[in-house]
């Protein structure tokens, strides 16, 4: 069952280095020989100096020397010398390589190098970036380089340069410049502080829209995930009244089914289409497991909810261990198909990842499918009938026992679908389900039992609330605040947001 992982392709820059080494096979004597010697024999400070010297020349051949240096090798007078590279040297060499690549003739190389430097590079690269700016004509790369230059100038000691840089950063829309400006806004120098604050406000104003939008999207995304996790539970708990603590493990089974399908597809050439097979497969497998559980265990415990809770907890423990035995305790890797990676760039600081967009759509589809099933089919009619009045439904000929099994299978299958969706977002491991069980129960209880609409509203509300609180107080505190809120809420309104009306004293 275990799929042999394909050997990872060499990262792009490694291949590049190899290529360059082949091309520039002749020793780099045209270079500053003294610098090369320092690179080989000097102490770490001298080595850094040498790197700067090589970079300053801007010679394309320096690229090859530095690339080999980063690998731990320097060629002096035709002899190979091994050097020890520590993190500091590796960082300096990496920056230098990116800087040198800014001058490369290929556009793609230059763009990649500019992006790499934009994530934060040492200020010593500034001359090189300026040199590149002089030559650069590409409309995409130029603004990026200007930003890089500005953020490097920010770190320089010269006040006039810093002020100019602050002005320039004020016109950008990148979150990076915001952090830089925020730093400068606490500067000791009065003038710089004022300028930085002005620029910061401008950038923040431009970024604010994006941030709100991003937060909104994150909320919907989390809401859709909670909805997927809780929908199955809304059937098994809401309609059948079964506390299924193994619900999370059914989600986990769906995720592992997706993994297995993906392994089968890996060598077929239709890898990108594996989700088409994984979605029904995860539904069927989880539903089958659920129906077996219902027949073997849960059926004997109807009407004894606390016992059901314990028995299904036992089932969940066994399922976790079973998956550990079959697939190992480590997480397995589920690769996204190509169309799920990347995202839509809406604003400069908002990227909506395709995988999350897809899951929102998927949750919508599952929800409408379930609604159709419950309101437009005979099985749905029976399920609703049994929910409302089991004895009466039985009297008019509904096979209640069989309906229970099917309904439980449906709820479990939807849990499997949730697992398939979750496998596209994060790690798939034996404990995957445990993280969702508390959340999904709270969604169902918060929304009100026996109501699909309630579950939907509850999932979205909790998704938004979680993300907005998170932005404000951090992830853990947000989670705690929400749990406390729901605990208090249930005490005020035990029947949930939406309640079936009744007159019983046992409401």
């Amino acid at each position, binding site marked *: 069952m275990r799929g042999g992982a394909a050997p990872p392709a060499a990262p792009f820059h490694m291949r590049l280095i190899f290529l360059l080494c082949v091309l520039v096979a002749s020793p780099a004597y045209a270079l500053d020989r003294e610098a090369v010697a320092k690179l080989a024999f000097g102490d770490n400070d001298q080595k850094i100096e040498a790197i700067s010297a090589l970079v300053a020349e801007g010679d394309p051949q320096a690229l090859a020397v530095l690339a080999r240096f980063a690998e731990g090798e320097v060629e002096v007078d035709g002899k190979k010398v091994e050097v020890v590279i520590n993190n500091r040297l590796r960082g300096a060499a990496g920056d230098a390589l990116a800087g040198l690549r800014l001058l490369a003739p290929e556009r793609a190389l230059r763009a990649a190098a500019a992006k790499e430097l934009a994530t934060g590079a040492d200020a010593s690269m500034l001359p090189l970036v300026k040199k590149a700016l002089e030559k650069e004509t590409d409309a995409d790369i130029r603004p990026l380089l200007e930003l890089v230059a500005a953020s490097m100038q920010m770190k320089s000691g010269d006040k006039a340069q810093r002020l100019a840089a602050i002005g320039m950063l004020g016109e950008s829309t990148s979150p990076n410049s915001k952090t830089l400006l925020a730093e400068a806004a606490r500067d000791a120098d009065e003038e710089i502080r004022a300028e930085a604050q002005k620029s910061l406000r401008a950038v923040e104003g431009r970024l604010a829209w994006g941030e709100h939008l991003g937060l909104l999207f994150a909320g919907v995304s989390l809401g859709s995930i909670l909805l997927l996790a809780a929908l199955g539970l809304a059937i098994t708990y809401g309609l059948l009244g079964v506390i299924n603590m193994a619900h999370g493990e059914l989600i986990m089974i769906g995720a592992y089914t997706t993994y297995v399908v993906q392994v089968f597809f890996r060598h077929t050439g239709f890898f990108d289409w594996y989700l088409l097979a994984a979605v029904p497969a995860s539904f069927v497998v989880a539903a089958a497991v659920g129906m077996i559980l219902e027949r073997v265990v849960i059926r004997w415990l109807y009407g004894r909810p606390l016992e*059901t809770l*314990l028995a299904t907890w036992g*089932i969940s423990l*066994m399922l976790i261990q079973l998956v550990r035995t079959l697939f190992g305790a480590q997480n397995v890797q589920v690769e996204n198909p190509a169309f799920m990676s990347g995202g839509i760039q809406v604003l400069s600081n908002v990227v909506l990842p395709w995988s999350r967009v897809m899951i929102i759509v998927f949750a919508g589809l599952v929800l409408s499918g379930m609604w159709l099933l419950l309101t437009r089919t005979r099985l749905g009619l029976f399920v609703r009938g049994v929910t409302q009045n089991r004895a009466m439904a039985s009297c008019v000929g509904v096979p209640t026992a069989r309906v229970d099994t099917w309904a439980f299978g449906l709820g479990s299958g939807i849990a499997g679908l949730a697992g398939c969706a979750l496998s596209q977002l994060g790690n798939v491991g034996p404990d995957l389900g445990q993280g969702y069980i508390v959340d999904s129960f709270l969604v169902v209880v918060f929304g009100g039992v026996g109501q699909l609409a309630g579950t939907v509203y509850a999932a979205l509300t909790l998704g938004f609330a979680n993300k907005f609180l998170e932005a404000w107080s951090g992830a853990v*505190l947000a989670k705690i605040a929400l749990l406390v809120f729901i605990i208090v809420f249930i005490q005020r309104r035990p029947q949930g947001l939406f309640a079936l009306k009744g007159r019983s004293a046992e409401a």
Partner: protein
Amino acid sequence: MTRLYGAKGWIALGLAALLIAVLPLYLSSYWVTLLGKIMCYAIVAIAMDLIWGYCGILSLGHGLFFALGGYAMGMYLMRQIGREGQYQSDLPDFMVFLDWKQLPWQWWNTDQFWWAMLLVVAVPGLLALVFGYFAFRSRVKGVYFSIITQALTFAAMLLFFRNATGFGGNNGFTDFKRILGFTITSPETRAALFAVTGAVLIGTLLLARWIVTSKLGRVLTAIRDAETRAAFCGYDTVHYKVAVFTLSAVICGIAGALYVPQVGIINPSEMSPANSIEIAIWVALGGRGTLIGPILGAGVVNGAKSFFTQAFPEYWLYFLGLIFILATLFLPRGIAGFAQRLKARRA
């Protein structure tokens, strides 16, 4: 006296007390620790039986109360380390590591044993009192109560995982050196802790037995079997439920305080929802509403746990899962109920 147990019962209890006093002299320290740990769990099981077996309320927050008692004791033990920690500071090591300069407010006076003991009882008790009052007043019951107590436990676990909460984050408390001035790892201290735990276990059993045979116990059973009817008879069921929930939480806190010095560590994973559910299975396996049964259940499950996790670690979860399923399906009244039935058949 005779209301609690018959002559045979008292003799059995006396023998058990004698055994607890003598055992540590003949057992290796491994066994003393293991049995001491199991006795702590047995105390928790009695507390759980009081509320679940006799009052029908399945609380999934008992792991939290247990851990709170443990943390209160842990704070005292941390302060007892004094300057013998790795950093030779007055502050506990993890605070030095976090670069804190003084004790946070929660730690006030925790170097005093009496204050720590007060916390052991008061913190779980107050939490249960407040939480229980609001929950029972709004008639949260059955599975709903289980779910919100589980949510409470989960929230507390997340809170204790944070370093900023001031209780050592992930690692919790460990590396204790002394209790009341005695070296914590010496055989004499271990034997004393064992004896104290045994005494508390027997005391708890007698207290619980006294409660369930009193009028209070009758009302609790009535609430379990027909709460609405008991309320219509004029009993304020909320007060009864809050009282038994609080008492149960306090007992759990004491058990936790006895557990920590014997095991030598307390961390937030003690609060994981799984632990609280495991407590329920001790009671279910032993037999709800029997008091003796849950002690047996705690012993059987935890004995099996330490056997399996050493001999066949990969099969432990299968075994535990099977206990959960089989006990609920085939032993609705637990081992104790099964034994009673066998006896009745023979008679």
